[in-house]
Structure formats: C-alpha cells, structure tokens
C-alpha cells in the first residue's frame, strides 16, 4: 500500500479560545474519492482551509505527499488543488483569461493544456465569454478546470454542488467521476447532502461539531456486498424482465416500473445488459439507503 496523498494528524483550530476543529485525523489515499460529510458549520471548510494553507493551524499537522503544509508550503501545494466554498474567479475576464492567469502562476502558458481542460469540463464553446455571463454550474466547472491546471494528486472541493439545480449537480458529479478516472487523482469533497456523496464517493468521513465521528474506510466493499433495491423505468417491460431475470436476486413488476434487488456492484452490468438489448431506460433510482439512516442517526442527537 502506497503512502496516503494527504495525511492529517491531530489537527486543531482554535479561534479566540474556541475549538472550531478538534483533533482531526484523516487520510486520503491515491485515486480515492472521499466524501466529507457534516451539517453546515460543522468545521468542514475550516479543515479544508487548513489542508490548503489558507488559514493557520493551531496544533497538529497536514502532510501532503510527504511535505508539511506549514514548513514546506510551496512544495506541498504542488500536489493539491481545488477550491474552497465557491470558485471565485475574475468575472471581468473570459474563462480563457482566467485559466491563462492561473496557469501562468505555475509556469509558462500552454494553450493546448487550457483547450484540453476546457474540453474536459465541457466549456469549449463558452471559453471566450466573460465569466460574468456564466451560469453557476459553468463557474463551478471552470473552477474545476482551474484546479486541474497544476495536474494535482488530490482535488479539495468544498461544496462544489452548492446552489446548483439537480441537473447541474448531476453534471458536476459526472465530470468529477470522469476526471477521477481519467486523471487518476484523489478527490476530497465536502457536502451536507448525503445521497449525493453516496453515489460519488468511495469512502465517507463524517464530521460533527469539529470532530470526526465516523470514517467508513470500507464503504465501497460494504456497498458492493450489500444488497440494494432499485426501481427501473424501462420499456418494453416484459423484455427487460426477461433479460434481467437470471442476474438479479429478486425482480418484481409494478405497472411500468421494475423493482429489482441486486448487489450494488452489479448495477453497472445490469444497465449495460439493458442497453445491449436496445431497451429504453427512462430512470434508475435507488429505493432506500442504509447510509442515509445511519447519517441521520449520527447527527440527530443534536437536532
């Protein structure tokens, strides 16, 4: 097992004798998408700001790829990128100019790189428009492209889907999955929305009142082994039933919808099978989640 990309040790942040973050320990490994989950004001942003050196550390350490963020800041920041709270860019400049600006901080301007990244986040056509004309989703994607300029090992994204409409959320999620896969980078992403994190992340870390209350190291295997219930809206229904019959644990039909029980890890193959048979898939949605009830139970004590 290789060394973790980000190692956070006993991290504490005190502001006027009040502990905003208490003794936080966490690790992010190579290629992992880690969700950082907690209600608003739980200290997610503060932890992330300390990881990227935007605020001072009261005690504890942040090590990025073997480099301490305090003592070897320039070196440590080479491996980490992302945005905190909201990717605030220069609105009076075009998307292209913004990327040129942030690339020039790192090294000489390479227009091919910029074009490639703009393409990756789907901003090719809007690249030469001023950022003030962008939608929120476009700004978020430009923020992600900006973060990728330095070819980081890990992306730190604080609430990247905040304020987006459902379509925008799905869009960002898809881009993130694509990026993680194509560039083989780790993503540390915070949110207060569980179901969103559940779909995206390999692992979830829960924070509450500045303390880590749970770190599900094996959520992936847990999920893959676990049985899940999904509803499918597929036509023609009969053919779909026929196709899936032998590969799922249980199958039922309710009018147009098929309810299947399957292993979480099998879902992509089931969908692939449906596509291969030229079936029309209108929706695939999880029925319930064991994680959700867990999450609510964890924080409910304080609400």
């Amino acid at each position, binding site marked *: 097992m290789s060394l973790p990309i980000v190692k956070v040790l006993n991290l504490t942040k005190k502001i006027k004798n009040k502990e905003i973050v208490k003794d936080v320990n966490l690790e992010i490994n190579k290629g992992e998408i880690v969700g950082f989950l907690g209600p608003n004001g739980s200290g997610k942003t503060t932890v992330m700001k300390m990881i990227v050196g935007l605020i001072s550390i009261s005690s504890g350490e942040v090590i990025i790829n073997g480099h301490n963020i305090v003592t070897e800041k320039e070196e440590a920041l080479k491996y980490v990128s992302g945005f905190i709270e909201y990717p*605030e*860019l220069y609105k009076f400049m075009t998307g292209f100019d913004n990327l040129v600006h942030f690339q020039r*901080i790192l090294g000489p301007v390479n227009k091919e790189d910029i074009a490639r990244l703009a393409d990756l986040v789907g901003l090719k056509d809007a690249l030469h428009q001023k950022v003030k004309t962008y939608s929120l989703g476009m700004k978020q994607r430009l923020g992600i492209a900006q973060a990728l300029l330095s070819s980081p090992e890990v992306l730190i994204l604080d609430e990247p889907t905040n304020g987006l409409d459902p379509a925008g959320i799905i869009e960002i999620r898809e881009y993130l999955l694509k990026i993680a896969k194509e560039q083989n980078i780790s993503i540390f992403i915070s949110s207060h929305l569980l179901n969103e994190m559940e779909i995206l992340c390999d692992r979830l870390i829960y924070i509450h009142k500045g303390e880590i209350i749970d770190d599900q190291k094996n959520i992936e295997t847990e999920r893959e082994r676990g049985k899940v219930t999904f509803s499918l809206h597929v036509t023609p229904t009969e053919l779909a039933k026929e196709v899936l019959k032998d590969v799922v644990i249980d199958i039922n039909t309710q009018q147009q919808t098929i309810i299947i029980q399957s292993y979480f890890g099998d879902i992509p193959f089931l969908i692939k099978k449906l596509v291969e048979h030229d079936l029309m898939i209108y929706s695939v949605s999880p029925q319930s989640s064991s994680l959700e009830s867990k999450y609510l139970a964890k924080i409910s004590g304080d609400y």
Partner: protein
Amino acid sequence: MKQFIRLVKNEHMKLYKQKMMWIIIAILISTITLTLIVTLNSDEEDSPSDWRTSLEEKNAVLLKQMADETIPEDYKKNTIEKELQLNNYRLENDISPLYSNTASGFVQETVGFTGLITLFIIIIAASIVSQEYTWGTIKLLLMRPVNRWKFIIAKFMTVVLNALYLYILLFCLSLIVGTIVFGFSEPGLRYVFMANGEIKDVSIFYHFLQYFGSKFVGVIMIASFAFMISTIFKKNTIAITISIFIQFAGTLTSSVLSLLDKGFAKYLFFANTNLYQYVEGAPPEGQTLTFSIINLIIYFIIFKFISFYMFEKRDVVT
C-alpha cells in the same frame, strides 16, 4: 525570476482587463488635450521671437513696483527682486523664457498633472490587494504553490511600473503634441530657476528629469502607504480616503505643525515626500535632502514590513 515576471504579467493582465485603467489613461490624455486647447486659444502677447523686448518691458514694470512705497517690503524682496534677477540673467545669457506655445514650454505646462497621476496611483495601490479579497479570488490565488510574499512583491512592482508608464505617457505625449503643434525651434532649451537664493541654469531635459524623478519618489511613498492600509483593512475605500487626505492635506498639516513648533513634524513621512523642494525654492528649516531620503527609506521599510506581515500571517476568511 521567471516566475516573478509571470506574476507581474498576471497583475498587468488583471489591471488592463478592467475599465478603470483605461479610464485613467483617457483622463490623462484628455487633460493634455484640454491644456492644448487652452494654450492655443489664449492670446499670449509675447512670442518667443521677440522675448528680449518683452522681458525688458516687464523689467521696467517690476522696477517701477520696487519704487512704489505702497507695496510691502516682504513682497518686494521675495518676489519682485527674484523675478528681476532671473530676467536679467536671461537677458545677459541669452536664454529665452519658457513659453507655453513652444514644445518644451508645453511640457512645462503639463508637468503639474503628476498630481493627477498620484491620485490614480493611490487608487491602483489601494485596490490591487484589497480587490482580490472583495472578489474572493484571494482564496484561489493563495492556494497555488507560490509563497504569499511573492504575490505581494509582484503586486507592488505592478503599481510602481504603472506609475512609471503614466509618467512616461504624460511626458512623451506632451512633448510629441507640443512638437507637432508648436514646432521645436525655440532658441533657449535651458531652465533658469532660483535655489537657495542662487540662480541656477540647467538643460530643460535635466530639469524635467529632476522634476519627474523627485515627484516619482513621492508617488511611490504614498502608494506604499495606500498599499499598506488596504492590506490591513482589505478594503480600498479606507485606504484611498486616508491616502488622498494625506497627499493633499499632508503638506498643510506638516507646516501647521511646524508653525506650532512641534519638533516631530519634520519626521512625518509626508513632510518629506516633496523632494523637489530641495531642487527649486527654499526647503523648510531643519530638513535637508539627506534627512528626507533617510526618513523616506525608513518609512518605506516600515510600510513594506507591515504589508508583508499582514498578508503573510493572516487567515483567509471570506
């Protein structure tokens, strides 16, 4: 070094992608144009060709005033006598006065606009750091693998360079316009002035160099001050207000303080920013060029230290 040049380039890009910088340039150009229109329309009786006759006539008037008992002695001694001396010097040495309808005379008309440039530079210096905070872009900037002090040096360097550009624009544009409109044919390319009761006579370009050079030092000092205030408060409004007040009321304040016999007045930085007072005219008592330069260097170091410390240590909260 390459990285530093790239950072300065970035600051220039941000500055010139905003309308403000272009408005500043437009104002400067229109001020020069207005001066030209005024100069063209003012029916100056004197013309460079017969300057000798007109100077002699002026001297006659001045001599009459010297004889006039109703005019106070102080005024005679400080103003009329000096003017007579200068006029006589010109006549003896065959040096024409500067007329505003000549190329170098036109430049001399516009050098006063360095005050306008000071105003613009205060605005730029007060905004270049604080705007990153108001825009929120400071977070993305400081997350990059570059030490914070490098950004702050690049930003200050950009302020200094832009002050220089505006000075060059003012000087070159005035000279070019002056040459095109009035021609470059005047006989006397020399500047005659009084310094500590002595008549001095230098090349007109040496005079411009001294004038712009000493004013430039003043601009950089007030810019450092505005830069520091805006780094502390993260808002450009406070920095602009305080700096403009100091720039335009500072001289008054320091002379009032020294009149009240407050010994500390001469140690205030704005009592020392006008280095040109050591070239032409009479410097205030107790202050010398060396005193002012040392004073300014110490203030400059203090301003820079505070800006760096604040920027380097502060948590980014937005």
